[in-house]
């Protein structure tokens, strides 16, 4: 606790608060622009934080994360287009509220729920992650390999509509992660004489290509005119009656978001929908959900911001990212000379406390930025994409170049931009590639280490309980996802058949 209080003194310096503030404001703008995600924003800005101190760098990046999670709700409520995937559930009740003239009410509840959810997530992170890191100190190579497999299986299970395509994306990402030097004997692999690849594919340029450049290309394909906003944004704080009504939902949803965020691979979009479902289930008036229920805005917003704190738990305590954004933060921390994981608490505890303090300050900044800038952010949605997209492309190329002042990184960004675009066209998810790039080296290094020690014996699968549990959970997540997909396909087919029967015979009786 003393360390955390000392960190507050460091974090509340003017330059750090400015960095966090800029991050939150930038993140909110990014989140408010449909088509731009928190992942893209953090990926674009990481290179620019390279020259900053750790605390300024992390403060800005965490600010973007928190800001984008809140910002996504603005277009969701005003134009029924979520700014980020995590705000998709917010549109279900936020937009109907806007349609009946209550946009201000919805936006103010979204702000308070986001801030509250962030605080809940950060509080749980501060108390839980040290405990998990102590437990993780008992992990050996076999456990870390099993953890990497578990993390990958979750992201495969929840990405896209096809498990096999998710697996293909993950294997592709794992193969990319083998480029560079062998982690055991240092011999070069797949570098084709290019020494720039000796340390592996440059992470940030690859990321910018996959998540930013590919989105620009996809956006250029589907270019549409920006919508004009006519809704009145007239209040900052929700009415006392609304806040009291939604308070239990906010607390519950913040905790749901935090715990879902703590599962490696699970992100804000899942947290938001799970919280929305739970709020509807436990509501006295579930029939109002989907038609402008205020709890339908509070629940997903508290959850997706709670997820931000939750996603930091496995990152800091295990070195395994909780979602795509924390995967990038892992890269940013490594660039700053820190290796997230259980040893970070032993060797860099002041830095860990600085991160905690920066997140708490970030939560306050989300409130201030949201309150002051709500009307401005509402207008940001109307920015012409025809001007915005080329500017994002320039920033992407510049961001890649600035990592090593090497034009080869720009070419790599463009190549991965093409790959990312083609992946999206053929319905392959991108998140497994990102996580595979992070977890691949960890999985290979630890597996080969264990096999050397055990003389090629794979007995860890059944002799080490933590490994057994993690590997079984990995298999279970894939099977459950496969069964769910089959169920959805069957239900869709049945609904179509019923529709066809009605069309042919003019009857509402369901076919047998």
């Amino acid at each position, binding site marked *: 606790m003393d360390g955390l209080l000392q960190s507050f003194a460091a974090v509340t310096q003017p330059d750090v608060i400015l960095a966090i503030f800029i991050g939150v404001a930038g993140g909110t703008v990014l989140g408010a622009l449909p088509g731009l995600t928190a992942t893209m924003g953090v990926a674009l800005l990481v290179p620019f934080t390279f020259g900053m101190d750790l605390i300024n760098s992390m403060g800005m990046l965490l600010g973007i994360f928190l800001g984008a999670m809140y910002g996504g709700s603005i277009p969701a409520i005003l134009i029924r287009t979520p700014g980020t995937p995590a705000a998709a559930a917010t549109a279900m009740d936020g937009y109907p509220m806007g349609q009946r003239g209550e946009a201000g009410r919805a936006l103010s509840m979204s702000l308070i729920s986001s801030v509250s959810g962030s605080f809940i997530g950060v509080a749980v992170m501060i108390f839980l992650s040290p405990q998990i890191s102590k437990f993780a100190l008992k992990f050996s190579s076999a456990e870390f390999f099993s953890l990497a497999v578990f993390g990958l299986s979750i992201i495969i299970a929840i990405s896209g509509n096809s498990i096999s395509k998710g697996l293909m994306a993950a294997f592709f990402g794992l193969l990319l992660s083998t480029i560079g030097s062998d982690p055991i*004997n240092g011999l070069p*692999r797949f570098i084709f004489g290019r020494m720039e690849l000796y340390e592996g594919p440059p992470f940030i340029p690859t990321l910018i290509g996959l998540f930013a*450049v590919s989105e620009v*290309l996809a956006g250029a394909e589907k*270019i549409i005119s920006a919508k004009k906003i006519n809704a009145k944004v007239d209040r900052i704080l929700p009415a006392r009656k609304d806040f009291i009504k939604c308070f239990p939902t906010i607390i519950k949803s913040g905790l749901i978001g935090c715990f879902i965020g703590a599962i490696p691979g699970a992100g804000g979009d899942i947290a938001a929908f799970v919280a929305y479902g739970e709020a509807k289930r436990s509501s006295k008036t579930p029939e109002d959900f989907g038609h402008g229920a205020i709890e339908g805005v509070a629940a997903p917003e508290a959850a997706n911001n709670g997820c931000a704190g939750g996603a930091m738990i496995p990152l800091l305590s295990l070195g395994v990212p909780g979602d795509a954004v924390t995967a990038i933060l892992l890269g940013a921390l490594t660039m700053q000379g820190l290796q997230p994981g259980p040893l970070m608490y032993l060797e860099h505890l002041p830095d860990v406390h600085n991160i905690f303090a920066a997140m708490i300050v970030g939560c306050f900044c989300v409130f201030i930025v949201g309150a002051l800038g709500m009307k401005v952010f509402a207008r940001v949605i109307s920015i*012409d994409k025809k001007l915005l997209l*080329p500017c994002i492309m320039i920033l992407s190329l510049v961001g890649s170049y600035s990592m090593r002042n090497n*034009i080869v990184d720009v070419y790599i960004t463009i190549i991965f931009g093409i790959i990312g675009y083609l992946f999206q066209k053929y319905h392959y998810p991108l998140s497994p590639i990102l996580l595979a790039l992070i977890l691949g080296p960890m999985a290979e290094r630890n597996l*080969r280490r264990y096999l*050397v020690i055990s003389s090629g014996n794979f007995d860890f699968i059944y002799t080490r309980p933590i490994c057994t549990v993690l590997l079984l959970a990995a298999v279970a997540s894939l099977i459950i996802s496969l069964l769910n997909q089959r169920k959805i396909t069957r239900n869709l087919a049945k609904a179509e058949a019923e529709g066809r029967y009605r069309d042919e015979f003019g009857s509402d009786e369901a076919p047998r």
Partner: protein
Amino acid sequence: MKQKGLRANLISGTAAIIFGIWVWFQADKFPEDPTITLNSDFFPKVLVLGLIAASLSMMLIAYMSEKGEQFDSISLRKPAMQRVVLILAATMIYALVMKPLSFILGGMLYLFAVTFVLGNRKWKQMLLVSVIAPIVVFYIFKNVLGITLPMGILKFILR
């Protein structure tokens, strides 16, 4: 509809298998370390087997599926696709000329060209953004972030 989806999946699945086989042959060329049992080619080869298995499974599921996936075809006859290709070409040219020409000059030409390709015809707005944005970005990078972007033929003015 099903045929289009099936064809797209077969193309991507086949491409993945060909890629996997190529990786396998590349991995065979890795030097061996006689002091260790599992060499550098072990993990990549395991992954290739996984990729090929997943690809075959995806193609089989796509073949047996009653209702195919909906795909937007990649056809250069579509204006949308032409936009994407033009923007990609412009981006590659910009990457090639960034160093010799300079970030600012290349950026101005790039921004103007791409906003034009995207359909913007508000000339004053296009000129304003194309000229001001690269200068502002260059200034922020140099004086705030301490990163000097390529100066190319403008190095005598910008230094």
